[in-house]
């Protein structure tokens, strides 16, 4: 009998990284966010569900992990009903697809339902609204971690490519194009947005969507770039969201962006963490984000020539948006609110330093990160090649 769980090149590093990010988030979070009885449980549900989905090869267990990780969001009363319904529909769609797959009939429908679930969960256009809504009205760090689990990559790698090889290649091209369109659309949406949480939601959606664009790439470079981006986006996003949440709490609950808040004078280290995480997220040099995007674009250009336009435009807009948000939050006349609150406490500074150092070290010595993902990429290339061969037959 095949084991239910496995650790291999694809999931080993993401599972460790994800667990560490959870630990970092729980350490950094303001105490008031963890004071309610169910708060820690909700975080653990997201972590457990994600790790189950990461480490399983069984379709039913992957579905169970996928669903478990979404329960905290689906039960969050403050999040809009449509957003919760979208997430629930994603779970149902994935479940239905997997059921059809197990029957062996209507494989096209099975594949379509699975891909639909991936698109919904990823917040690809037109489903980006649930990410913005969950960031704004829910627990931003928890929902950020849930979004950044990128279980779509796991579903494609573990289910779509090996079990539906004939369908995967052509259909992934459609998903890739939707992902690239989302990268540009979400970046444009962030331009006129006023609320910091939603701004970050659109930027994260935009940057994360290119992960799927690379998976369809026909070579190991694109897939390595994609898998590396899968590491970079959660790290950078966790840093950004955690700093934002710390600022909200320090600023009395909200961060109105009508003017310049000038928090950098009071919290210079938080400003530095925010800036470096933001720069990494939008792929500027000196950070791991640059490496993953470089690989992604060089590799995927062959399959999608317009990636050479979509990613530069999306990253340019996202970089402007992140810098503008940085200026609004941290620059401007100094406001001495809550003078007793320290810049970054030790329990905040250590995890943030680890995240930022990780992003910079992988950006300066990229071969370390590339080696961590290249073997998994080679496995996926082989799986895609088998799919092509099956289609040809």
């Amino acid at each position: 009998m095949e084991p239910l769980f496995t650790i291999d090149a694809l999931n080993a590093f993401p599972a460790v990284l994800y667990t560490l990010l959870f630990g970092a988030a729980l350490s950094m979070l303001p105490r008031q966010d963890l004071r309610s009885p169910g708060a820690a449980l909700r975080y653990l549900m997201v972590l457990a569900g994600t790790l189950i989905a990461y480490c399983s090869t069984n379709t039913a267990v992957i579905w169970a992990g996928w669903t478990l990780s979404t329960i905290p969001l689906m039960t969050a009363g403050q999040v809009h009903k449509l957003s919760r319904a979208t997430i629930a529909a994603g779970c149902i769609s994935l479940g239905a697809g997997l059921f059809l797959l197990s029957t062996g009939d209507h494989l096209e429908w099975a594949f379509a339902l699975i891909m639909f679930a991936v698109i919904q969960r990823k917040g690809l256009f037109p489903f980006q609204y649930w990410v913005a809504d969950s960031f704004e009205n829910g627990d931003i760090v928890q929902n950020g971690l849930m979004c950044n689990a990128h279980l779509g990559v796991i579903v494609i790698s573990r289910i779509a490519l090996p079990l539906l090889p004939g369908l995967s290649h052509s259909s992934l091209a459609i998903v890739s194009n939707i992902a690239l369109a989302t990268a540009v659309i979400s970046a444009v949406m962030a331009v006129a947005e006023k609320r910091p949480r939603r701004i970050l939601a659109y930027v994260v959606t935009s940057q994360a969507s290119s992960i799927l664009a690379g998976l369809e790439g026909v070579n190991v470079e694109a897939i390595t770039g994609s898998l590396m981006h899968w590491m970079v986006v959660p790290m950078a996003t966790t840093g950004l969201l955690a700093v934002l949440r710390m600022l909200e709490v320090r600023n009395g609950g909200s961060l109105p962006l009508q003017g310049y808040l000038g928090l950098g004078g009071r919290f210079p280290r938080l400003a530095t963490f925010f800036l470096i995480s933001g720069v990494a997220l939008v792929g500027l040099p000196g950070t791991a984000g640059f490496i993953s995007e470089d690989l992604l674009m060089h590799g995927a250009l062959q399959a999608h020539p317009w990636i050479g336009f979509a990613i530069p435009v999306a990253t340019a807009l996202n970089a402007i948006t992140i810098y503008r948000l940085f200026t609004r939050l941290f620059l401007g006349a100094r406001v001495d609110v809550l003078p007793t609150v320290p810049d970054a406490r030790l329990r905040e500074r250590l995890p943030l330093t680890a995240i930022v150092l990780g992003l910079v070290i992988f950006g300066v010595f990229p071969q370390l990160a590339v080696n961590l993902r290249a073997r998994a990429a080679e496995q996926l290339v082989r799986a895609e090649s088998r799919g092509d061969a099956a289609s040809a037959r």
Partner: protein
Amino acid sequence: MASAVPYALQDKTLAAFAATAISAPGVALASLGLLWLFGVRLSEKLVAALTLATYVISAGSLAYVAYAVYSIPGHDAVLRLGPWFRVGEYEFDLAQRLDSVSLPLLGMTAILTGLIAAFSQTYMHREPGYYRFFLLLHAFGFGAMTAFSAAHLDLLIVGWELVGLSSVLLIAFFYQRRGPVECGVRVFGIYRTADIGLLAGVFLIHHWGDSTSLLSIGQHALTPHQATAVGLLLLLAAMGKAAQAPFSGWLPRAMEGPTPSSAIFYGAISVHMGAYLLLRVRPLLAESYFALAAVTFIGLFTAVHGLLAGRAASDTKTSLAYAAVSQLGLIFAEIGVGWTNLALLHIVGHSMIRTLQFLRAPSMLHEHHHMRAAAGGQVDLAGTSFESILPLAVRHHLYWYALDRGHLDRFLQAAFVRPVVALSQFLLALDSRLLEPVDGRRTRLASVNPKAEEADA
């Protein structure tokens, strides 16, 4: 300007010197950054001494490398430090091109940045952001050295972006004032927009020509249309960095930063990176008459525009900024018509003189005020106004044009910013409407005041 096949340097000592020259500012940046992050406070004197030592080491190493390279026939060498990272068939090579184009600019960067560091030791004394200033100066120095020595366009992007980011952060150096912060956002917007040209151009070269190496640029089998497309995209990148029309408006705004950074960024190094890019890709541009004509036209138009706008500027730094814009326009035109040696000489000479002018500007004003006071408040204006030979009506039109700086900022606002903001608001409104009807709860609409949005963007 360079031999067709660069000499591949194998000498390990030389490689060590070249690597030291380029990476010294990077090591200084990393060291100072980590010390700050862990709460270690260094004295002003120590920071300045470390900075000076960094650029002395860098300049000394470069002098040795230049001596070695100039003893090679053709004065063109490539130094491969090995792959930065490698996956599948793709390899990101850390290769440096050391030739008669890069070496003068590398030397200029090391010397001028060192001089600026020495100048800033006194100028920035007891400034609250003293440490930050030097950190950003090292980031800039490392970026410029990386870009100027890059043997392929991917590596050039690394340096190019670092220079852009450090430059913007220095514009917003006095972050408690709204003006510098807003100017920084504006400059960053223009940099990033122009960078779309660089990124897209580089990836198209890679796609069509299968290599982004600057050693083989112009030898790709690109069709004239492909060469035109790539050439125009790279021209867009160069225009943004070199403040060419219609992007000229950012340069006077960038003067909000401290004077030493204005001198090094906008007088000397940063603004010339666009011209350097065009010099490097000149063989590719030569494959397209349209691209060459565009480079020449943009250059000449900017030269005249800078001259006019500078004449109507009311402060020293803005006048100097437009003088720099004008000279950069001439450099572009020189590259366009193929006078590349003259363009290189022009870059070096212009950098030196403009740095001196920017550094002298505050004390010159001070002296002028003294002179004015000594003369009883009346100082006769020197020089001749050549525009006085023009008819009055023409002069009025030119003055109106110059006063609004050619209406170029308004053009950019109308042509690019407003459409993007309008599209963004439309998409946000769709999202909001989608969420409204389900439970009757109105979501808070993002955009409330289109004019405010526009101003923000």
